[in-house]
């Protein structure tokens, strides 16, 4: 988000870059085009649909190099710099290629005092990379992120902008990494409200892939 604060001299976005994707790949399928058309109908201007379309493009291509942004700009009929500006502002859009599974470890505030950094450092040790790096096999990227809104069940992480994994311990990380290496995602895990535990005798969602409780959060050994 605040990229240009840390790197005040930002290179001018490349308008004719060495492309990663070929012209044949740079195309939305008819289904995707129909989806983008629906996005456009949701807003009074085409520009309103840019965030939805960037999400769709990121899911399709994995990340957003300039030629993909140009494709989005052409599709929505809006200027390329606007798409570029939006993409660089939001931290969930990827400028560079990431691993297949991006592990966003929360270390903000509550997670800090409840062992978020212990989890981050344990992951770094297990995968042999530092935060912000990708493993050589292209499977994992580790990122340190700000509050993900699951403070009561921290330390926690999110897998590639999708599933939350709550109440992390080193053992749970080991299991998670083994599962991900075999392409088993944890799915949607519902954390039971303490009052539901008392009044309903457990979780109220019968369609969740997994159920957990709010438990006493661990003691942080490292806080930075």
């Amino acid at each position, binding site marked *: *988000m*605040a990229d240009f*604060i840390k790197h005040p001299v930002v290179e001018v976005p490349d308008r004719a870059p060495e492309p990663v994707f070929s012209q044949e790949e740079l195309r939305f399928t008819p289904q995707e085009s129909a989806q983008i058309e629906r996005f456009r109908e*949701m*807003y*009074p*201007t085409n*520009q*309103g649909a*840019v*965030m*939805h379309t*960037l*999400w769709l493009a990121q899911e399709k291509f994995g990340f957003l190099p300039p030629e993909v942004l140009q494709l989005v700009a052409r599709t929505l009929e*809006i200027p390329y710099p*606007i798409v570029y*500006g*939006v993409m660089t*502002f*939001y*931290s*969930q*859009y990827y400028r560079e290629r990431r691993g297949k599974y991006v592990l966003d470890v929360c*270390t*903000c*505030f*509550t997670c*800090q*005092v*409840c062992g978020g950094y212990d989890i981050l450092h344990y992951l770094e040790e297990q995968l042999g990379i530092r935060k912000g790096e990708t493993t050589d096999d292209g499977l994992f990227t580790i990122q340190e*992120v*700000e*509050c993900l*809104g*699951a*403070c*009561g*069940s*921290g330390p926690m992480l*999110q897998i590639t*902008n*999708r599933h*939350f994994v709550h109440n992390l311990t080193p053992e749970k990380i080991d299991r998670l990494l083994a599962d991900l290496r075999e392409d088993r995602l944890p799915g*949607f895990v519902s954390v039971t*409200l*303490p*009052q*539901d535990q008392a*009044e*309903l005798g457990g979780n*109220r*969602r*019968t*369609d969740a892939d997994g159920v957990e409780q709010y*438990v*006493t*959060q661990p*003691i942080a050994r490292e*806080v*930075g």
Partner: protein
Amino acid sequence: MEASNGSAASRAGDWRKYERVLLPPIRDLHRLDVYEQHGGYRSLRSVLTSGDWTPASVTDAVKASGLRGRGGAGFVTGMKWSFMPPPEPGKARYLCCNGDESEPGTFKDRQLMEYNPHLILEGMLIASFAMSITTAYLYVRGEFADWIVHMERQLEKLYEKGYVGDNILGSDFSCDIVIHKGAGAYICGEETSLMESLEGKRAYPRAKPPFPAQHGCWGMPTTINNVETLACAPLIVERGAEWFAGMGAEKHPGPVLYGISGHINRPGVYEYPTGMLIKDLIYEVAGGMRGGKKLKALVPGGASVPVLRADMIDGVTMDSDSLRKAGSMMGTAGMLVLDEDTDMVSFLRRITHFYHHETCGQCTPCREGTGWIENLVTRIDEGEGNLRDLDILLELCDQMEGRTVCALADAAAWPVRNTINRFRDEFEAKCKPAVHATGPYAMAE
């Protein structure tokens, strides 16, 4: 309101017998059929088809209920709704439901989206009726992808059954609901930057005035309310403004989702009325401090609100008046509890890092200030700081507060100022001992 459970200072009444209304104990309430079985969309039906309600009377009921925004600022919701100008033919109006929930320490809106999403959607429809709005946007932060997928599925069912769309429930009121997925920016929780984000721009906050009610999304009249605030609207319609106004603290009534986290035995989201004694919440509701440790500090409503020392919470209740007197704010009611082993300097360092990362970079005092604050606090935390750095930090806070377009600079300065003032000895202990100046500085001393 007199307390009835023995603890004289609580304003929440007999909270042990409290029956939940935002998250009532019903299995699978997130499904439309279950929600309908338990009286769901009855408020909407009554508002649209009974003939007893007009847009003005819904707004008046919300005003009379005393409902205050649950997103942090605590503004009176009915008042905000009445700021909308009268509808003009051909001029669009918008409602934005703020589900960006990115304040550190806050995790209540996500639970509402998970367990009772239809209450939010019904609230959005009632609010849209009250302000004659035909398009309502639900802005959810991009990290909540799972919950967005679930809500989109429910929204499709609503369209099929005629609860959303044209001529809702056979009335002449039409309204569309659009779910907008954010992409990871704390600043989008600020109402004007949320609108910029909806328009597909970099989310730079706008200067106010003009206020959103005059010049909002795409320049049209717009109202922005938090998820939990709008979820109260169906309850007010169904049970009446008096019922709502009579619950909890007098000037800040209603049910609240308290998110309790940190060094506590039973963290989680709890629903109780406002005006709960902080001590009750910690020691009765959430099972006391982890490992029987002593309480050291408490952040009552998300990272931006001033931190309270353990000796400052005696008799303090969770409502805006009481917390303001105690020197803090209600914020989002996301409470972080810290025990005696917490290093307040490292703790503040992480907060300053958060604000440095999340400043949008539009205003110089905030863009530069958050960076300098982080550098200084980091230096102190690493044992390289001087005593003079503390005063520089406080001066930096003066230079940031109230000098920017939005409140992020204030939100970044308050924790710094208050943590230093309230835990000054800890900061001083981490600084290098004072060295008497020589040379040009000796003159000044």
